[in-house]
């Protein structure tokens, strides 16, 4: 039985720098996998490779048994992969509802017009933005923009969702809401890969963690075990040669 997402030997260089170096891991259907690592370890680059924003120099990525490495991002999105961005990206000139419709109108099957408006309303409710459909997206607070970005991702009805530090920059009470929201997604069976630095969130949400350092995988396993791993600790404490 192959897993929903299977990454192997994934490599990407920027000039002399190997940002992702032979990375291999998999994500099973319904699983929440945390992608951890110190700053600059290549987590965002890995998500960019999987979502098609960047092309890998080497390696394979299989989504539900289908090779997607090097495909255009729109093709990958239509195959059922959604993502959020480390620096939140909402469509600022549009309303909240239009932001969500953006996620509905170009996926397969297409949702447009009345049906899309209805579904967008439901998705806004889902992330806690109920009733704000007509509000301009750039008038939202930071956390609400993050919610909106999540709703746009969910609009794709993704088979897998990539979250890049979606919980970063939230205050403690917002963080609890955010964690509850992601947990409720898991309850619905959504498969998630989340890049995260917030340890509380990792411990309470992730089934498994993958830890990167300098582009390479250094540990993999349940959150508690991984976070106690000496190699992980020394990587986080700043040893480049950990």
């Amino acid at each position: 039985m192959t897993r929903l997402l299977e990454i192997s030997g994934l490599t990407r260089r920027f000039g002399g720098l190997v940002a992702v170096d032979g990375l291999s891991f998999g994500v099973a259907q319904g699983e929440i996998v945390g992608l951890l690592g110190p700053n600059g370890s290549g987590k965002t680059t890995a998500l960019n490779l999987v979502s098609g924003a960047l092309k890998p120099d080497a390696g394979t990525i299989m989504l539900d048994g289908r090779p997607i490495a090097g495909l255009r991002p729109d093709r990958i999105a239509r195959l059922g992969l959604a993502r959020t961005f480390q620096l939140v990206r909402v469509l600022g000139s549009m309303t909240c509802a239009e932001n969500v419709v953006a996620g509905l109108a170009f996926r397969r099957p297409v949702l447009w017009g009345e049906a899309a408006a209805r579904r967008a309303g439901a998705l806004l409710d889902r992330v806690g933005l109920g009733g704000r459909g007509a509000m301009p997206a750039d008038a939202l607070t930071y956390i609400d923009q993050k919610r909106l970005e999540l709703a746009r991702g969910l609009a794709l009805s993704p088979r897998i969702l990539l979250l890049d530090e979606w919980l970063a920059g939230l205050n403690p009470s917002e963080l609890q809401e955010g964690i509850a929201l992601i947990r409720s997604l898991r309850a619905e069976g959504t498969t998630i890969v989340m890049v995260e630095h917030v340890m509380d969130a990792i411990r309470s949400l992730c089934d498994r963690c993958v830890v990167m350092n300098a582009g390479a995988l250094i540990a993999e396993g349940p959150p508690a075990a991984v976070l106690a791993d000496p190699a992980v600790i020394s990587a986080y404490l700043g040893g480049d040669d950990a």
Partner: protein
Amino acid sequence: MTFLPLIPATLLVAALATLPLYADGYCLSLSLSLLNYTVLATAWAMFSGPTRYVSLATVAFFGIGAYSVAVLGEVLPWPLVLLIAAAVGGAVALLVGLSTLRLSGVYFVVFTFGLAELIRQLVTWYEVNVTRALGRYVFVDVTQAQIYWQMLALATLVFLTGWLVGRSRLGFALRIIGDDETVAPHVGIDITIVKVALFALSAVFMTLAGAIMAPRWTYIDPAIAFNPMVSFQVLIMALLGGAGRLYGPLLGVIPLTLLFEFLIARFPNHFSIILGLVFLVIVYLVPNGVAGLTARRAAR
């Protein structure tokens, strides 16, 4: 409900269609200029408004239209001439779009400007070396009133198309691209196809404008048909009116066509300098265009 704006629009077009029945030659010719710039600026904004890709290729397509007529006008029936002109303009736009819409910002501006100049030089070279006459006479049996009605029909079509595109997934995709080109592909939008399709659609209207206007000159040469000033004028009109809305460019076309008409008549030798000044003032004072101003006021 959403079809409501069609009623006053239809009445307006019907009223405008009666103009040749009572207007004198000067008034008709001015109205023709207004219609021409309306088509060009609205077509320009159809692509450049949402994507914010500034194109200076307007006159390249306009000139292609005019030359199609100069070459084929006498030999083929008029509808066929228009069809061929539209096809040539559209094909050039597809080619150019596919090769350049990956360029961003200033590179695209420079490329489109270069394209118009390149086509002008190519036509000049061909005329000088092959046909051995720089200019051409446009022999098409058509009255000023008939040109006017055709331009009015084209203007109506451009608005109708813009209105439909604005309500379509295509138009929505273009707005998303304009807002955030990084997000667009990750929601499943093939940004290349969307941009190229809209660029070609807008180019077809520009080409048709050139084709319909060509008989008005009776004589054209590359400097007339591919006058780069036209691209700049269209750009400035769309910017003044506001390229973010369908009716925006019209708000710039009316005052500026009248202003340019006046300036050309009064200061024929200093027209370019004054045009430059007008450009600066507009970009400085109304960065979002008149339509943007009124919308902001309404939102207050």
